[in-house]
């Protein structure tokens, strides 16, 4: 979400024009590139408890090992990546992005190919390897509920739709991807036969639950906040963040059945003056022990390095999206199917929402 603020001093006709300008203005006046400095590396990720785990597992050790300062940014917006690349002022050297965002970035020609001379891939699992990005963790978007707010435990998306037996307000992420899949699963479609999605059927099913969705969440932190405060009784949420909340004593529960797993990837925006260093960082962060520390101790996501599992306790492995029992219950989110349809379906999503 953009952080455009309405200035207090806009006057009469100025107000409207300024608002319009505010939409694109910030992207036009990007500050001029400063001299390329190799003393720092700018990394943009998704914030919250997730970025905190990356700070401990990768950023701080990288600073110690190399003496290079890691400057953090939050919210790897496609729009910001595009503005940086097209204006030639690339500020972010490494970004952590979801797979469908990587696919869009590829079609817009915004990423550097991964330099496999620096980034070693022999122990990385296959689905994590792409030309323009290397999977960092597997994350799950799952039905999550607050145990204190529900008398019965929901077993899957069909229960999410069942407002009689599971009363209370709900929340979902404010976009079409994932939700349409969940709707189809709730409608009885086999999770292994989702794609190509039956769009009309999915929207029809979504309409059944619309009145019970109190809030559409936009950031991962928001979904957890709503579940924690009891503002909603059930929501889709990212498993790692749920795990962090659980470890703080919040009574949340994940339903693995019908959940979606997808990859977060390391990628490098095109034209960064610190490309080589960026690749070195990716290689550093793919290290089995460092991934094991992140996923085993800090946040319950699935590491992309096969060897990382050697360093994660058995009990902990059961909480990860990539644990075989969990994996069997989920479906793999198909970014490739979504990418070319994303614009049209998101537009349809907006039209559906206000109808």
């Amino acid at each position: 979400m953009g952080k455009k603020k309405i200035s207090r001093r806009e006057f009469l006709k100025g107000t409207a024009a300024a608002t319009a300008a505010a939409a694109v203005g910030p992207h036009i006046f990007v500050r001029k590139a400063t001299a390329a400095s190799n003393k720092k590396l700018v990394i943009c990720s998704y914030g919250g408890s997730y970025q905190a785990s990356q700070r401990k597992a990768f950023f701080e050790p990288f600073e110690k090992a190399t003496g290079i300062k890691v400057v953090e940014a939050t919210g790897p917006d496609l729009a910001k990546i595009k503005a940086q690349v097209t204006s030639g002022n690339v500020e972010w050297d490494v970004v952590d992005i979801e797979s469908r965002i990587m696919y869009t970035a590829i079609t817009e020609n915004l990423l550097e190919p991964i330099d496999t001379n620096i980034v070693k891939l022999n122990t990385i699992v296959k689905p994590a390897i792409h030309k323009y990005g290397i999977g960092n963790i597997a994350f799950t978007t799952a039905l999550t509920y607050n145990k204190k707010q529900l008398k019965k435990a929901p077993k899957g998306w069909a229960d999410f739709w069942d407002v009689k037996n599971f009363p209370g307000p709900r929340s979902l992420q404010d976009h079409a991807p994932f939700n349409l899949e969940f709707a189809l699963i709730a409608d009885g479609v086999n999770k292994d036969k989702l794609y190509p999605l039956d769009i009309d059927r999915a929207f029809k099913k979504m309409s059944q639950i619309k009145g019970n969705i109190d809030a559409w969440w936009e950031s991962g932190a928001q979904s957890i906040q709503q579940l924690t405060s009891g503002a909603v009784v059930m929501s889709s949420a990212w498993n790692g963040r749920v795990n962090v909340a659980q470890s703080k004593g919040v009574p949340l529960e994940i339903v693995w059945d019908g959940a979606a797993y997808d990859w977060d990837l390391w990628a490098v925006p095109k034209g960064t003056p610190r490309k080589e260093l960026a690749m070195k960082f990716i290689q550093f962060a793919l290290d089995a022990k460092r991934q094991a520390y992140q996923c085993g101790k800090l946040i319950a996501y699935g590491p992309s390095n096969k060897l990382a599992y050697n360093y994660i306790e058995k009990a902990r492995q059961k909480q990860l999206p990539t644990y075989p029992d969990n994996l069997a219950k989920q479906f793999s989110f198909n970014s490739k199917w979504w990418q070319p349809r994303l614009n049209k379906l998101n537009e349809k999503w907006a039209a559906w929402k206000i109808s």
Partner: protein
Amino acid sequence: MDKRLKNILMHPTAKGMLLLTPALVALTVFFVIPILRMFHLSLFDPHFTIKYYIAFFQRPVYMRVMWITVKISLIVTAVCLLVGYPFAFILSRAGEKLSKVFLVCIVLSMCISLLVRNFSWIIILQRSGIVDSFLMKMGITHHHVRLLHNLFSVVLGMAEILLPYMILPIFSVLKSIDPNLPKAAQTMGARPAQAFWWVTFPLSLPGVYAGFLLVFIMSLGYFITPALLGGSREMMISNMIAFQVQTVLNWHFAASLSMILLVATLVFYTIFNRVVGLEKLEDLGV
């Protein structure tokens, strides 16, 4: 300094122009040029095309969002007027000290971040939040009341932020009205309510118009409040623009949406000007 140069510089018009220069430069660089660039972006991809404007009118969702935007803005403006006018009236009749304290409070409220104020509303209005639990504890309701993520919370959040823009112009006009005028009406036999309705209120209308215009036009471009406090249906055109910029990455279409919002605002401004006549406001120094 050369006397001739001094004469030129001290000439009334030249002096005016000189004083205007910084503002004009700033306006051109930060305002006119970006708008022109955006206008260009909305029409060239990379060759001249009006497909992005056609798309707006072809697909019903955008017209609907435009209508929602106007509707929410009108409601917010009406709420601000209903709350703001009595407030401004009392303020204008209050003693010097008291009205100063209130004015400082109003201006100070404008210094608090919009985000903070919106999030505060979430905490107050959410399920099991302050209001909800109070209502249930008092036994006024037995079920949770849905106060958040609907038209109510959006209007509340926007009106709370925009209220000063209604109060201040009305207050300044009310303050400039000669207090002897309503008194004169009363000596002619008018009751206080009549004196207000036939003398004070008509004289305060320029302030009402100014406040109305300010609040309405600022509402049209609102973005954060509907995103944070709104539900499914409270989607405003700025949210749509942000969506095109950030998620869809269709900046040409985003630019055309922005231009349409700008033109719609200017059209509204022109109509308003014709009907009301904004010169009056300038006379009053509003």
